[in-house]
C-alpha cells in the first residue's frame, strides 16, 4: 500500500512539476535576463517585474502542488525512490513540453542529454 501511495505521488509530482517548469520558464523569458535587469535597474525592479507576470503565479501554484505531492511521497517512500523516479519522468516530459509550448530548439544533443539523465536517474531508483 505504501508503494501505491508513493507511485501515485510520483505521477502527481511529474504532471505538476512539468506544468510548473514550463509556466515558470515562459514567465522568466518574458521578464528577461534577471542579472542584467538587477545590474541596470536594481533588485526591486526584478521583483516587481516578476510579480507583475501573471503566468508566474500559475507556475508557482503548479510547483506548490508538486511540492506537497513530494512531501506526501517522501513520507511513504524512500528518498532514493520518490526523488529519482519523479525526476526521471519530469526530464522527458519537460523536453517534449519545452519543444511544444516554449518552442525551444531541442536538437539531438538536448534529447540525448534529457534521455541519458532520465535513464541515469531511473537506474538510481532501482
Amino acid at each position, binding site marked *: 500500500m505504501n508503494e501505491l501511495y508513493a507511485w501515485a505521488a510520483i505521477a502527481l509530482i511529474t504532471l505538476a512539476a512539468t506544468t510548473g517548469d514550463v509556466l515558470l520558464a515562459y514567465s522568466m523569458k518574458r521578464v528577461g535576463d534577471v542579472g542584467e535587469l538587477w545590474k541596470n535597474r536594481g533588485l526591486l525592479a526584478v521583483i516587481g517585474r516578476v510579480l507583475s507576470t501573471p503566468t508566474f503565479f500559475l507556475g508557482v501554484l503548479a510547483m506548490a502542488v508538486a511540492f506537497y505531492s513530494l512531501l506526501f511521497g517522501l513520507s511513504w517512500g524512500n528518498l532514493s525512490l520518490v526523488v529519482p523516479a519523479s525526476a526521471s519522468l519530469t526530464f522527458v516530459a519537460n523536453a517534449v513540453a519545452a519543444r511544444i509550448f516554449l*518552442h525551444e530548439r*531541442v536538437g539531438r544533443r538536448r534529447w540525448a542529454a534529457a534521455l*541519458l539523465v532520465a535513464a*541515469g536517474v531511473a537506474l538510481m531508483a532501482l
Partner: protein
Amino acid sequence: MTFRKYLVLAGITVFSTLGDSLLARGMKELGGISLHNVSGLLLAILNPWVTLGILLLLAFFASYMSALSWADLTYVLPATSLGYVLVALIAHVAFHEQILPTRWLGIALIAAGVGFVAVGPSVTTHAHPSTHDDVPADTVSQEVKL
C-alpha cells in the same frame, strides 16, 4: 555563459539537493502522513529539518528563476541534474541507504547527459532560422534576443 552564470547553475544543484535531503530527514521523523491525516502535512512545517529544507528550497527557487531568465528549460534541467548524484551520496552517508552497481551506472549516465548539454548552446536564439527551419520562430525566443 559567464562564470557567474555557472555559479547560479551550481547553486541550483546544491540548494535543491540539500533542501530535498533535509525535508526527507524531517518527514522520516514525522512518519507516514495519509489522506486521513492532512493536518499532519501542514504541521510538518514546524519540524526544524523541514523548516531548514524549505529555506534552502527557496534559495534554489531564486537561482532557478534567474537561470530560466537567460537559459532554455531544456538546458537548465540536464545541466543541474548532478544533484541526483549528490542525493544518492547524501542518502548513503546520512540515511545509510546502499549504493548498488546499477546506481553507479546511473551516476555515469547522468554525468554523460550533463556533458552533452554543457558543450551546446544555453539558449534558443533563432539567430539563423534558415539552418533550423524545423522550429518556428516565436515571440518568446524573439524576446530572448533583446
